């Protein structure tokens, strides 16, 4: 048997009895002998650790835990409700704000000139007519785009 095989065997047996062949190697090889002794020492250490008693639960551990769980259930359920409602409220407010901002900005600025509130009502703002169009460059394009309205 070589050292590698002994190492495997020691981890397998974990301090248990070696076969005669393995023992023969261990007796001659200082490295493997040390490893075997370490395995026995570690195993004894584990036994000593296992003997050590775990701490006991303090008096009333279970009833305290149940009380806390019941409190958590009430709070948790209420908290979850408010959290959900609150989150929806925030989203709705944000969406409304965004919609308001867009409705204020879109009719007067940028390339998107949907049906603006004034246009929709047929009240073409004078100031808008007198200003050059940012898309077309002059009012000629606007005439083509909205011929019906300009004749009114």
């Amino acid at each position, binding site marked *: 048997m070589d050292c590698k095989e002994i190492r495997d065997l020691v981890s397998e047996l974990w301090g248990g009895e070696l076969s005669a062949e393995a023992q023969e190697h261990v007796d001659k090889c200082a490295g493997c002998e040390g490893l075997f002794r370490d395995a026995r020492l570690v195993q004894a250490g584990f036994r000593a650790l*296992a003997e050590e008693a775990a701490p006991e639960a303090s008096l009333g551990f279970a009833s305290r835990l149940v009380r806390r769980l019941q409190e958590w259930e009430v709070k948790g359920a209420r908290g979850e409700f408010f959290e959900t409602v609150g989150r929806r409220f925030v989203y709705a407010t944000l969406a409304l704000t965004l919609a308001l901002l867009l409705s204020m900005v879109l009719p007067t600025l940028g390339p998107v000139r949907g049906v603006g509130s004034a246009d929709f009502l047929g009240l073409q703002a004078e100031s808008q007519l007198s200003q050059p169009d940012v898309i077309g460059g002059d009012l000629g394009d606007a005439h083509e785009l909205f011929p019906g309205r300009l004749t009114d």
Partner: protein
Amino acid sequence: MAISESEVTREIECIRCVQQGDGEAFGLLVERYQQRIFSIVFHLVRRRDEVEDLAQEIFFKAFRAIRSYNFQSSFATWLSRIAVNHCYDYLRKVRASRLSYYSEMTEESSRELERKLESPQAGGLDHGEKVTLRDFVGRLLARAPEDDRVILTLKELEDFSVEEIAELLKLKSSTVKVRLHRARKRMLGDLERWRQEGK
């Protein structure tokens, strides 16, 4: 923990009650399993001051998850799995603050212990020697990777069989055997390095 058939039936009824929201029934389960959970936590974490808090968190998790318990494995196994996973996460979290040096056990005291272990009256270690050994292996465990620590603790300290560990960790028995073998090998290798560093 062997329990009779009638106890199993009562336990099942109790679990069903908890699944329907009966917190008091959960208290009975806590009372039955608290010592088992305390033992697993203590052996895995090895910090007396943390055991109760961690056990509480484990039972909390179990209560929240109990509706998902489908009676496939025993309740003890299911609960122990939650405990092991919770401790595993805890060990990973505290890894950075873990002790990174070995026991103060000298070469001489180590030899003395070895001689005693080899003597025919093995088991004749006095209290101080047992404390030294615990400290020594406790520190070796603290240095081990979490996976090794979990598997070695379940086998060597909690005395679970390979099959029980396999069920608990949802692994094959053959995988548990291989992992156990590797964990022991790594631990011995670690100890060997320490010895060489000390020379």
